[in-house]
């Protein structure tokens, strides 16, 4: 391929396309936005318009009160992620977007499970909860509520374990994430 500054020309056959590619993996987008009314609606609207399905979404304040962080996860097998991030960048209130590399990221989610466990099942559920380093946060005659934090894999594994007891409901926050190492996400 021709180097800059030389008169060598470029063989068109050597050119590769850039962009529009399906990565095939799950992506965690960490988006810093101005803390202003309507910003979440703008972000969500972009996904809705193109029928991009958001898997999880978490919004909260940052250390700077004028800035909020939106963390959302998407399936890169379904959608060309670069198209999403480029569209997001066009929103005036979006300050920064990181498409977090899974190997370079710590992500956590909190889930609450309300389980139909009577007195007989209670000991077993508590055992699972221990193994998953969860916490029992409420108990009634015929139910227990357990809190578990972790990656989405861990939460899904716990869900599998306790389903046979009768899962009354499950509430998940959606993942939040930071990059590993010293630099800010």
């Amino acid at each position, binding site marked *: 391929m*021709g180097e*800059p500054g030389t008169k060598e*020309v470029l*063989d*068109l056959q050597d050119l590769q396309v850039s962009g529009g590619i399906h990565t095939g993996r799950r992506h965690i987008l960490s988006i810093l936005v101005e803390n202003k009314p309507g910003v979440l609606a703008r972000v969500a*609207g972009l996904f809705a318009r193109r029928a991009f399905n958001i898997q999880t979404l978490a919004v909260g304040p940052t250390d700077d009160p004028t800035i909020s962080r939106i963390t959302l996860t998407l399936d890169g097998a379904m959608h060309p992620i*670069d198209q999403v991030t480029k569209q997001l960048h066009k929103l005036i209130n979006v300050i920064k977007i990181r498409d977090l590399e899974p190997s370079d990221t710590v992500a956590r989610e909190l889930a609450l499970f309300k389980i139909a466990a009577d007195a007989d099942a209670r000991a077993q559920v508590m055992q699972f909860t221990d193994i998953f380093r969860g916490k029992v946060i409420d108990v009634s005659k015929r139910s227990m509520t357990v809190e578990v934090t972790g990656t989405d894999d861990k939460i899904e594994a716990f869900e599998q374990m306790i389903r046979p007891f009768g899962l009354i409901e499950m509430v998940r926050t959606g993942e939040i994430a930071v990059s590993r190492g010293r630099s800010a996400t």
Partner: protein
Amino acid sequence: MRAVDAIIESLKAEGVEAVFGIPGGANLPTYDALYDGGIRHVLCRHEQGAGHAAEGYAKASGRVGVALATSGPGATNLVTPIADAMLDSVPTVFLTGQVRTELIGTDGFQEADTTGITMPIVKHSIMIQDPREIPRAIHEAFHIARTGRPGPVLVDVPQDLSRADIQYEPVDGVSLPGYRPTTEGNVKQIRLAAKALANARRPVIYAGGGVVNANAAKELTDLCTSDRFPVTCTVMGLGAFPAPHDQWLGMLGMHGTRSANYAMDEADLIVAIGARFDDRITGKLSEFAPRAKFIHIDVDPAEISKNVPAHIPIVGDAKSILPKLTREYRALETDGSRLDGWWERIRGWRDKHPLGYEDSDDAEIKPQYMVEAMYEATNGDAIVTSDVGQHQMWCAQYYHFTKPRRWINSGGLGTMGFGLPSALGAQIGQPDDTVVCLAGDGSLQMTSQELATCVTEKIPVKVFIMNNGYLGMVRQWQELFWDGRYSGVDMGTSPDWVKLAEAYGAVGMRATQKGELVDQMKAALEADGPVVLDVQVSKEENCYPMIPAGQAARDMVG
């Protein structure tokens, strides 16, 4: 001062000299400030008209167009021009009144969620929360509307806040941490592009409205003529390259020339500049330019590789990138003779398939002839606006635009009724130019009330109606693709356009004889005020050539 007086001061600080709009309860305070505020207000007859007028003003002059509307129905009437400005990247600011803050969210009288309704069709919008924000909000709205990829910005002002007493200080500088458009273009990528061009044997330069927006027509021409690169433009790009030129292939796309579409089909390298590979250009995407590699230059990174994956993406302003590309290309001192074979092939198409039509041998006015007559009567030097339909495509084909900002039409949204209001806006933006609106008899009935605006405000636009008695473009599709079952396309009894013009206080004229048309047009152009010329053309002429929707360039018909 009152917040509304600060609005007027802010507009003046942005260089605004005219605004288009209609008052109502929620923007009454703004209108009070306009009364002696020193900005020309053009009262339109429908907010859609005001919005398109702002677009016409912006497209003709390159300055930001401004439209005003009240809350609720005033704002919802602006939805079409806002969407139009979004799709054609027109720098515009829409100032809407909103109900008082305590009524917001209560379904109060004339309340509509204006920022919500318009969210997907604006470049940016803001609802004022605190009257002290107003000067900054307006300054930033103008900044966003005209920089980067231009577009519509909406500022929604609750009525009570607009009456507040605030300190006005001119704002300079913006605080938009998330908005930093790239303008310069990566030097390495530009070099790469020059090298690719130097090796291309069948290159085509494909330019769109972005070149016009960037005021880069000269820079485009320099690049194209730095060698014998064949050039084509989209319907939005016409005028960016002077049409009567050896290297000009004509417009491309659905109603483009065969030479342009075949050249794209066989190209080995396509340089897209400020163009977005819209479906009216590509036809069937999987068969579009199958042999080509793509250099894509655009100020909006989200356009690059959106429809067609680019091999050499270059993000930035065409005005800054094109001269660098030309310089890099010249420095390579390549042998132009490598393009000989390509030109031979293109000339073959040109000779075999010139753009043409069968003219009448009697007094009948063929629609294509009407455009040629317009070209002759105006010396090819008018600002021409159009509506949407067959007449628009014929105008794009037969009015050979040589300069940018002379061809004003609704390309992206395809909005019928765009022609007349955009013409009046264009005339206010460019008072010394001749402005002609080539109207469709169907389209004009969507916004003909703006004739009243033209007469009242003494805006001397000339409206030439291509009157075929049909929603012609739809009729054509029904004839070609729906077994000739004409459903809902016959206009029945249209108004008597001459009388209608006269009813508004404009001059009305009618043309029925080919031999008299040019003279009648000249007479209309010489008349003082607005003129409506009803030109009765052949009713069932079809616009050719044509790539049927969803098909490939090779499948052109007609």
